[in-house]
């Protein structure tokens, strides 16, 4: 069973941070006192209620303690059964969403130190994304610079939705730093909740938040293309985590159609958006919003037109599939190895430096 994925590079693992109190050893005296005196602990993101069935697969929920809360659980639930070669840790934590950018920066810093000490130091198969205070590009770049010399940090982690559309020039220092250090920027299904997640106001149910997030990803991606981020930073890669792929064809078709008519407005977009997408965007394979008939997945991928697109991921501990069936049914055999390893190695230059 595990032979199917042996050696795989799992691009989306979510270690659970217990809360701000667990970060006290990694905070300076000032922030330790601030956090303690306010009793600030839980900063869970609203899209991921810890007790919701979606947030933790049933057989991955331990009898006691926090799901995805320690390395033993990761080894027992993922690294061993899937035969994982490399696993990338993408912490989901609300620190970047704080309005107080200095506190956000302190907590992001502490979170990255916690990941390094509690996880990376203990298992050499592990890598991680750098959590950054997205509301302050200046402080975000400081954190990237601080962490970049540690080659186990392989990407920059950003909230999928924050204060501004990502392509805006105010955010460019983050992309400049990421490109310079050979790190992709990864967007998570997580929001700073500055705005309603739909253009028509606030939804009622968790299912709406999750389904609508495909639109959020499209808004961000279109902003990055239209503002010229990929023209200005040609080596930058964007990784969409938990984005699914069902929306991609219509996005490419509509984007290309309108670009043909309106490209004079954005002449730095010197290729059609579909070509830019294929060169710069990668998507993790779980959850897959594939057609009901697995036989149709090949057709969908054919339409998208990129063998480089998909990155293997279990999305641990989120409940996406059963057993070790993390590869979507119907994935063409010729893509299996690309999805399991090659695409990730091409996307994350730092993984090649110490490939196990």
């Amino acid at each position: 069973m595990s032979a199917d994925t042996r050696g795989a590079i799992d691009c989306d693992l979510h270690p659970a941070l217990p809360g701000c109190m667990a970060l006290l050893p990694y905070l300076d005296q000032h922030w330790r006192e601030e956090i303690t005196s306010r009793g600030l602990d839980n900063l869970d993101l609203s899209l991921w209620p810890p007790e919701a069935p979606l947030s933790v697969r049933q057989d991955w929920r331990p009898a006691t303690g926090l799901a995805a809360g320690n390395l033993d659980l990761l080894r027992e639930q993922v690294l061993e059964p899937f035969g994982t070669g490399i696993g990338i840790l993408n912490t989901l934590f609300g620190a970047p969403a704080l309005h107080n950018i200095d506190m956000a920066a302190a907590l992001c810093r502490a979170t990255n130190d916690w990941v390094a000490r509690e996880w990376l130091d203990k298992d050499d198969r592990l890598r991680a994304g750098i959590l950054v205070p997205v509301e302050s590009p200046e402080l975000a770049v400081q954190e990237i610079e601080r962490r970049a010399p540690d080659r186990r940090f392989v990407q920059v982690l950003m909230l999928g939705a924050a204060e501004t559309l990502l392509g805006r020039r105010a955010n460019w220092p983050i992309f400049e730093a990421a490109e310079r250090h050979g790190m992709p920027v990864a967007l998570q299904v997580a929001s700073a909740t500055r705005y309603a997640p739909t253009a028509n106001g606030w939804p009622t149910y968790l299912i709406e938040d999750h389904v609508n997030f495909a639109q959020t990803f499209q808004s961000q991606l279109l902003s990055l293309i239209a503002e010229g981020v990929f023209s200005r930073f040609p080596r930058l890669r964007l990784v969409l985590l938990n984005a699914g792929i069902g929306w991609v064809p219509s996005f490419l078709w509509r984007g290309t159609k309108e670009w043909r008519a309106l490209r004079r407005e954005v002449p730095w977009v010197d290729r059609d958006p579909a070509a830019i997408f294929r060169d710069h965007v990668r998507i993790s394979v779980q959850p897959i919003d594939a057609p009901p008939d697995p036989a149709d997945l090949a057709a969908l991928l054919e339409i998208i037109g990129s063998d480089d697109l998909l990155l293997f991921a279990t999305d641990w501990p989120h409940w996406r599939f059963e057993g070790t069936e993390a590869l979507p049914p119907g994935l063409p055999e010729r893509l299996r190895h690309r999805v399991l390893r090659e695409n990730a190695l091409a996307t994350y230059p730092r993984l090649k430096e110490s490939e196990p």
Partner: protein
Amino acid sequence: MNRCPHQGAGLCEGEITGLVTSDRPGEFTLSRAGEIIRCPWHGWEFDIRTGQSWCDPSRIRIRPYPVAVAPGASLVQGPYVAETVPVRVEEDYVVIET
């Protein structure tokens, strides 16, 4: 012949303009003034010299026609010919022979 390959608009009604390009976001360069025609319906741009579209030059193109300025008589003789008769002048009289 006067049709945009997209949806058939009369291309001759389009604006004759130049090419807008950019080396980096926020910077604009206007070149090749008068060499680009924009379809009046959806703004697709075509290179007047080659017929190639800007958006997909290898697949979307219009038929180019060679154009030159030349005197009419060098291109074609008209079909209408007036009757001519020999004329000469003799001692202040114009003599027409019929």
